[in-house]
């Protein structure tokens, strides 16, 4: 039920319009095109299914557009489909817009016909008309409208075409109160129609205009229990338990059985009826001269997913994204750091001038501000390059191909190929990867994906990894060779993360998350030319700023705390030294030292601040020198006992340790379970400790 979903009307005159559609039809483009910045996003009450609402005005009337989850069908078998169905059935929208893909209209009509069965207040928006044209598919909008008996409009939502016409149709259909034209009726086998006739009159009598009696009759015959319960609640009386209705239902079921329709056959017929009708309509309304699919797409697929080139290209793409990120971020990073440290000097001078006590000034400037400046200058440039590049791949349609390539290996781990998609998202931000796990239908497989997402190092961990790789394994020179070397090594680290993901997924599915892989359908949508401008804006605002804002919000207070720890003396040493000394024996077993482990612990709010903490701790006796170059940093680290082995251990631990606090909170929100949140915390931590310990012991043995 949609209980609790607050519809954000601005006036009581606002009309509520549900926006439905198959996945990958450009529904969100339509939604964004109509509502612009005027949106509100959240979750459906009690469900981990996202909900977006937005308001728009047309012809002087207000409309609240409710974006319902993309689904192929309203015969619910996933949380998304249930939400979609319940909102259309029981959410009392004033109209339902079904967005369709003109390039595969026939399949989309399944959802259209199911919607029309529920409510005649349906408007069909055939999107992607431009792409259909390219594939030589012609959709006759007028004929389609005649066939369906509801308004149909064509659109190319990406360029904003057709949205006015769509709203005209919505406006018109919401003005009509009663006199709606009779829409198409899906006809089923004669025996089913007979059974419906038996039930329909008494249902019409008891539920009036609240629910479509023909639709309700079909659902009763089908015996969809949870839907019937929802209907009972909606109708607010147990009409369906009325003895006469029960009696008629028994009679109708008997008729069906005599005609050879058992439960399975009846369900098949319900689906087949829809598909046949869609087929019939398309014969009249869709004219195709081509293959029905793009030969260009197939050629690209043959390159991106073939046996010989699929994996090499995947790895090459990953490496080149890293290379562009590393090479491109270097110089702006230096500018930012020079600029921000110049500000630091001025800030200290200003505080001195207005008479702030030296202690407070040091704490604010050298503690809070300096850490913040570090995080911004180290993180912002790579993110501002990585996120747009990544969004570009996403927009192109490459990510489903990654899932397609990798599914076999996930299946071997009894997991789902779509986990490959959530891993990609985790490279950007693990919290985003966790939310992305919603695309996995099976709860068991979704949990596996969540518990292992942290093996993908997020953007906050890149700078640490890149800096260590460059300092200890590539050399701190500059130029093409250096950035490419770092990119390749970073790719290798990521591949180790991928390997750990598979290993741990497999272990989980053999132990706490036992089960067989569930069935799997993955759509490979057509490749689409990304809208570069929109990609940049969206990735900068939605992703970069969000992640940076979060990191900055924790960096400043963390910097303050660490400065305090480094400057408060207890007995003969600073608090930081005491803590580091306490952790040291354990950390040594992992090939690190107390300071490093302490930095990882203090870095819980954001991984970005691990390196700055290490630097501050090592320098806690003196004041922090500006780390202008990596070679200076390297000198500092080696002076504090770092070797190549230490560097490897730190990277391994950076790749495998607890998720950051935001990710933990996200996991708790998604799973609603303390137990699984704890597991998500422990799984990578235990793995990291084990791997680092083994690595250290092996070195001891052979080194």
């Amino acid at each position, binding site marked *: 039920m949609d209980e609790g979903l607050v519809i954000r009307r601005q006036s009581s005159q606002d009309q509520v319009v549900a926006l439905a559609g198959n996945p990958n039809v450009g529904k969100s483009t339509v939604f964004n095109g109509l509502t612009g910045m005027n949106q509100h996003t959240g979750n459906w009450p009690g469900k981990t299914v996202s909900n977006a609402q937005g308001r728009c005005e047309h012809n002087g009337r207000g409309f609240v557009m409710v974006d319902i989850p993309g689904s*192929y069908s309203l015969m619910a*078998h996933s949380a998304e489909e249930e939400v979609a169905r319940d909102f259309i059935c029981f959410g009392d929208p004033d109209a339902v817009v079904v967005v369709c893909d003109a390039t595969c209209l026939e*399949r989309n009509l399944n959802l259209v016909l199911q919607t029309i069965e529920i409510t005649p207040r349906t408007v069909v928006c055939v999107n992607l008309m431009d792409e259909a044209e390219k594939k030589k598919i012609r959709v006759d909008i007028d004929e389609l409208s005649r066939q369906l008996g509801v308004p149909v409009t064509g659109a190319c939502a990406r360029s904003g075409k057709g949205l006015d016409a769509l709203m005209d149709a919505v406006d018109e259909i919401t003005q009509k109160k009663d006199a709606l034209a009779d829409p198409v009726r899906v006809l089923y086998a004669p025996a089913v129609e007979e059974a419906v006739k038996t039930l329909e009159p008494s249902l019409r009598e008891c539920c009036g205009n609240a629910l479509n009696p023909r639709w309700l009759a079909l659902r009763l015959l089908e015996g969809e229990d949870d839907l019937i319960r929802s209907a009972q609640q909606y109708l607010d009386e147990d009409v369906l338990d009325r003895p006469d209705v029960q009696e008629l239902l028994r009679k109708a079921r008997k008729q069906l059985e005599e005609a050879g329709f058992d439960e399975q056959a009846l369900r098949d017929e319900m689906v087949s009826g829809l598909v046949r009708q869609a087929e019939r309509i398309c014969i009249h309304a869709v004219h195709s001269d081509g293959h029905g699919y793009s030969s260009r797409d197939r050629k690209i697929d043959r390159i991106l997913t073939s046996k010989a080139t699929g994996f090499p290209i995947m790895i090459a793409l990953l490496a080149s994204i890293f290379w562009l990120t590393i090479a491109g971020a270097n110089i702006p990073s230096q500018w930012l750091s020079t600029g921000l440290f110049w500000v630091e000097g001025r800030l200290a001078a200003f505080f001195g001038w207005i008479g702030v006590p030296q202690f407070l000034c040091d704490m604010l400037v050298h503690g809070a501000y300096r850490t913040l400046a570090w995080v911004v200058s180290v993180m912002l440039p790579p993110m501002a390059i990585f996120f747009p590049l990544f969004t570009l791949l996403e927009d192109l349609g490459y990510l489903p191909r990654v899932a397609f390539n990798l599914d076999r*290996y996930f299946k071997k781990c009894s997991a789902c190929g779509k986990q490959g998609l959530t891993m990609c998202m985790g490279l950007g931000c693990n919290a985003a990867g966790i939310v992305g796990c919603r695309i996995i239908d099976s709860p068991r497989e979704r949990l596996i994906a969540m518990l292992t997402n942290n093996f993908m190092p997020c953007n906050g961990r890149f700078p640490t990894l890149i800096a260590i790789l460059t300092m200890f394994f590539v050399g701190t020179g500059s130029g093409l060779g250096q950035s490419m070397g770092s990119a390749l090594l970073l790719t290798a680290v990521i591949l180790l993360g991928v390997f750990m993901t598979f290993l741990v997924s497999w272990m989980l599915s053999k132990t706490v998350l036992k089960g067989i892989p569930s*069935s*799997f*359908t993955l759509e490979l949508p057509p490749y689409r030319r990304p809208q570069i401008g929109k990609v940049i804006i969206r990735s900068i605002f939605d992703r970069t700023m969000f992640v940076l804002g979060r990191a900055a919000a924790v960096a400043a207070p963390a910097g303050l705390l660490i400065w305090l720890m480094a400057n408060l003396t207890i007995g003969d040493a600073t608090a930081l030294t005491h803590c580091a000394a306490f952790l040291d024996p354990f950390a040594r077993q992992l090939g690190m030292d107390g300071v490093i482990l302490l930095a990882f612990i203090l870095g819980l709010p954001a991984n970005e601040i691990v390196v700055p903490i290490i630097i501050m701790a090592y320098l806690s006796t003196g004041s922090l020198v500006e780390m202008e170059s990596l070679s200076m940093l390297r000198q500092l680290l080696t002076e504090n006992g770092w070797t190549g082995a230490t560097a490897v251990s730190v990277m391994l631990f950076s790749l495998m340790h607890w998720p950051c606090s935001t990710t933990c909170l996200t996991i708790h929100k998604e799973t609603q379970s303390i137990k699984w949140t704890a597991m998500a915390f422990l799984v990578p931590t235990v793995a990291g400790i084990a791997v680092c310990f083994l690595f250290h012991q092996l070195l001891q043995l052979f080194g």
Partner: protein
Amino acid sequence: MNPIQPLTDLQCGQTARVGKLTLQGSMRRRLQDIGLIEGTKVECVQKSPSGDPVAYLIRGAVIALRAEDSAGVLVFCG
């Protein structure tokens, strides 16, 4: 008429018509929802690097299926 065989046997580029679904439960329903019913034309368009899953063209959309699922779809070739 050609003999009935599992969809899994289809090679890239081959086309077939669905004769029968032997799958049960939610997978049966899911495939029916995307339009895979008796008589539907299916074309095998792309195998993944490891040969499983395989992508099929079903009513204008390209859908990847795992072998154990497509084995439950019996088709007439040609």
